[in-house]
């Protein structure tokens, strides 16, 4: 059988296939609505509809929710009768399965392990995701877009969220499920998984590329400068830009909000940057701090 068909038809992966279709459908639908409303806004018409944007909870909403609950229960019941739990062979403590994959919803984080140390990929970044999601109501000062879809009125918020959710969360899961095979090597859908496959891809630390040992003092200093200047630079640059072009915005935000937003944003953007460094330039670490048992960036 075609390896790709084999993978997507595995009982394990049904959820992800469904997820891909559902997410695509809702994304397209939401943006369609948003652009429709944007056209209304642009022509000065109200977007809320005849009810001033308000609908009763009881009856209209509860009814829909009840029906959806039924549909979901019907679907899950049929699924669980028709498809057995995908068990594999008896666990053998002497054999590590290859590839050893986390549950699908954690595969994005597992994929991060390719690019970051475990303490970053497994502890700091997930914590920041939770903290960041919790912080959204407090750092969002834009009153528009409540109760209706719009893109033009919340451009930055939507772009940043879409990037974080679709690319950094869902895409990484899809990669982890479909594109990672034995040895966590990259396999295209048409490639056969091969346990004996060897890929020689030596990675180097950033400073080693320019000839300085990354574990020597100069290497550590240079690496530290690069990382810290990215962090500081990334947080200061928008300040300077907005101060010149949109000082009103800065004033509205205030210093605490500004620092929180920029810190979260810079951290988020560090992920694709490090991915590109790792995949394209074969950089292992930018900055090594050898004294604490391996806190490396």
């Amino acid at each position: 059988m075609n390896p790709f068909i084999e993978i997507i038809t595995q009982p394990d992966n049904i959820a992800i296939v469904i997820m891909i279709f559902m997410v695509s459908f809702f994304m397209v639908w939401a943006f369609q609505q948003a652009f429709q409303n944007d056209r209304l806004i642009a022509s000065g018409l109200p977007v809320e509809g005849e009810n001033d944007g308000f609908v009763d909870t009881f009856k209209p909403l509860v009814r829909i929710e009840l029906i959806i609950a039924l549909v979901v229960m019907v679907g899950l019941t049929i699924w669980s009768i028709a498809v057995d739990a995908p068990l594999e062979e008896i666990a053998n403590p002497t054999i590590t399965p290859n590839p050893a994959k986390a549950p699908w919803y954690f595969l994005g984080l597992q994929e991060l392990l390719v690019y970051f140390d475990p303490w970053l990929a497994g502890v700091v970044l997930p914590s920041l995701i939770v903290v960041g999601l919790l912080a959204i109501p407090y750092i969002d000062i834009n009153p528009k877009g409540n109760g209706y879809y719009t893109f033009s009125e919340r451009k930055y918020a939507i772009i940043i969220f879409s990037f974080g959710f679709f690319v950094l969360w869902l895409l990484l899961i899809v990669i982890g499920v479909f594109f990672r095979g034995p040895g966590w090597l990259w396999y295209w859908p048409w490639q056969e998984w091969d346990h004996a496959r060897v890929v020689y891809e030596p990675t180097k630390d950033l400073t080693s590329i320019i000839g300085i040992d990354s574990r020597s003092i100069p290497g550590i200093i240079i690496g530290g400068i690069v990382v810290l200047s990215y962090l500081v630079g990334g947080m200061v640059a928008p300040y300077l830009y907005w101060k010149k072009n949109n000082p009103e915005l800065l004033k509205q935000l205030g210093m605490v909000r500004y620092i929180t937003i920029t810190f979260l944003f810079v951290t988020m953007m560090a992920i694709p940057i490090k991915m590109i460094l790792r995949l394209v330039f074969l950089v292992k670490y930018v900055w090594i701090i050898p004294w604490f048992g391996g806190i490396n960036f």
Partner: protein
Amino acid sequence: MANENKNNSSYRVYLFVFFSVLLLALSAWVVWDDEFGLRPWKKYQQEYKSLKHDKLEKDYKRAVVEFQRAGGHRKLADLEAKLKKAEDVFNSKETQEKYARVNKQLTDIHEQVVQNQKELRDLRGQFLESEYYFTKTQKQEYKAKMDGLQRKIDVNLLRGTELQKKEEPLKLSLSEFTSAKAAILAEIENMKNGLEEKKERIANNDKVPVDIKQIHIKDVDRADRCQSCHIGIDGKSQVSLKQPFTRHPASFVYLDHHDPSKFGCTFCHRGQGRATTSAEKAHGKVKHWDEPMLDGDMTQTSCLNCHGDIKGLRGAETIMKSTELIKKYGCYSCHKIPGYETVGDVGPVLTEVGTKVNYSWAVSWLLDPKKYFSTARMPKFFFTQDQAESIADYLFSMSGTTRHDADYTKATPNDKLVEQGKALWAQARCNLCHTTGGRGGNHIKVYAPDLSKVGSKVNKEWMFRWIKNPNAYFPGTKMPRFRFTDEEIRGLVEYIVKEYQDDEAEMKYVQPVEIKAASIKKGKELIQQYGCYGCHKLQGMEEMVQVAPSLKQQGVTFLRSNEMREKIGTELSSIGSKPVDMLDFGKLKKSIPNDRLSYIKQKLRDPRSYRLGLRMPDFRLAESEVNELASVLYGFTDANVPTRFLVPSRQELDRMAGVPSYKFTGDFAKVIADVKCTNCHAIRGIGADYAPDLSVAGSKLQESWIRSFLANPDVIRPLLQQMPKLGLSQGKPVAKVTMPRFNLGKQNVEDTNRSDVDVVINFFQQELVTSDIPKEVPKITTVDMTEQISKGKQLYDEKGCRACHQVGMDGGALGPNLSNVGNRLNSGFIFKHLENARKFKPDIVEPDYGFSERERIYLTNFLMTLKLTAK
């Protein structure tokens, strides 16, 4: 707008109703699936129950019909009429009055008895109390009281016996009134009993609950639920021939010795014993289950899990035959296999092979052994011509410096010698072990080489030395030393070389050619790489062998012991449970099933097919051999077997008990090392089962007979030997196989002045005796000897002994010929043999007539008179 809203909401109501109904239906499906869909065994059990019900009912009905046919119902009616009559008599006024009177008397007495017993209990209580106070206080008043009570107790007991005496006859006379009735009732009961029992069995069967039948083996925490479907597997009778309801085949062998409630099923059959949702899952024939179920003869592979020695194990015949292949092909030479650590080399010693064979032969043999003779055991290594020559160069350089051939095709043979040799060849029965072009080789397990082309393989000088003393060239060879004279050997060699030439042999080196050092070095590397020393002895000879100075200067050295890895192949001790992930299917991953058995079979069929660079040679096994070997290898597991299941082999038990294994000692050891008796005979557990076991031969056989037999072996059991297929004298099939004549008695044992026959006889009489067998038959002095003999003869005739045994020209040929038994066997042995023949030979066919001791003595005395007078 409002209208549209209303439409909208009614549409939602339909949706709601539709999905609600759907969910309700689904709930019903869930219940059904849980009750029946996931529990297919329920259906099987119900079907089995109804099948068994039908069978039992049929049984019952047949029994009823038989009962009626035998006039049962009429008899029953008669009995019932009698019963009626008896009841009438009993119920008549007169009898009733008598009965009531007796009954009254009895009740009165019984009341007295009860009263008396009450009193006794009372007295005993008081007595015990007084006794307690007396022992505590030692006061005389208590003693007096005790004595008084004791007297009363005695009186009471006396009265009790008297009452009992009165009671007994009354009871008897009372039962006389009812005895007639009771007897008839018992008879009726008895007649109905068989039927009632059958009826009850039907009821019991209907009551059996339908549930999971699980066997839990606690020590290894293994749960088998196989009997949930295979419900009749350990039944007493066959309920149905339909699967899964059949009984276990040959259960008297398997289940009788392996109680399913203690062993479960999956120990032997593998499979997924816990699975109950489908047959495929339970049989382990699903992905991710590495232990698919074994069925048929393949199951015998599991015997190896527990049984240390399967030789002679009933029910393990197939696997035992298969294990012979491991010895035949010497798998243990390269692979570590448990239980084969002490088995000797499969190949001959090669240290001085250069003095033995032709160089051209050696090269062609290395290239393809089966080309020389089709039954060759040596595998094909796929050497190139260059590689084969290098290896041959290395081997030849251990005893010389040249490649050389000896060509006898043009020599004119000495006809007289050839004639003598031909006669000797037949007389010595060389064909018993050696085949010549498909003829002979009856004793297959010694794996003697085929000699049909040997004239083009070895040279005369070597052959002479070999026949004269095989041990000198190859210590531990199976070839015995026949005590031929030099003259005889010369004739034999001439005959063999003349008779068995290979017409296709190419002799390139009749003019010797010097061996090149580079080639030797290459040969050494190849030998190391392919581990030739696994099967052939090459090591330990480095000091003994002279390397020519010129070769030595060029750096030629021979392999030292430490340069030879012990086992070059993978360890096979747990190949049967090796995780499939760890088997390298290489380029065949897609083309053969990825399971363990397929892997093993493919490896045996084509050892180098998985990837390049594999070293295992090709044995060119027949498909049947592949299957047999695979089934053995599949049984080498590290299965978690409870220690209480293990049945260690005899040797293991001896080792655990600290019993040293049996060893031949003294001069007899020298004779055995020479004549190799144990090639065919087993003695005290050592040796083969080709010829009779000699462990108690000293108690069994008479000295004079042994002497004459060794001098001129004759046939004793014409039919019991394997069917012969050898033509001893030029194609004419000879129907009898017997022991070769080793010419014992012509020479003394090495370093002594004792004749080898004397040594053998002495050993038989000293060592191969048992205290179980008396030297002589016990004597009966009261009966005259001639009468004893005639009684014995009478018995011999009565029991039909002649059906199997031959005396003179009369009798069958299944048992040994008894014409000369009086000269052959000791009377004590015959006596004991008649008592229990199986004690000496468990698989003997002789029936057990259960003779009394006296009869056995008569028979023995008769048999001892059967003697042939020496001619």
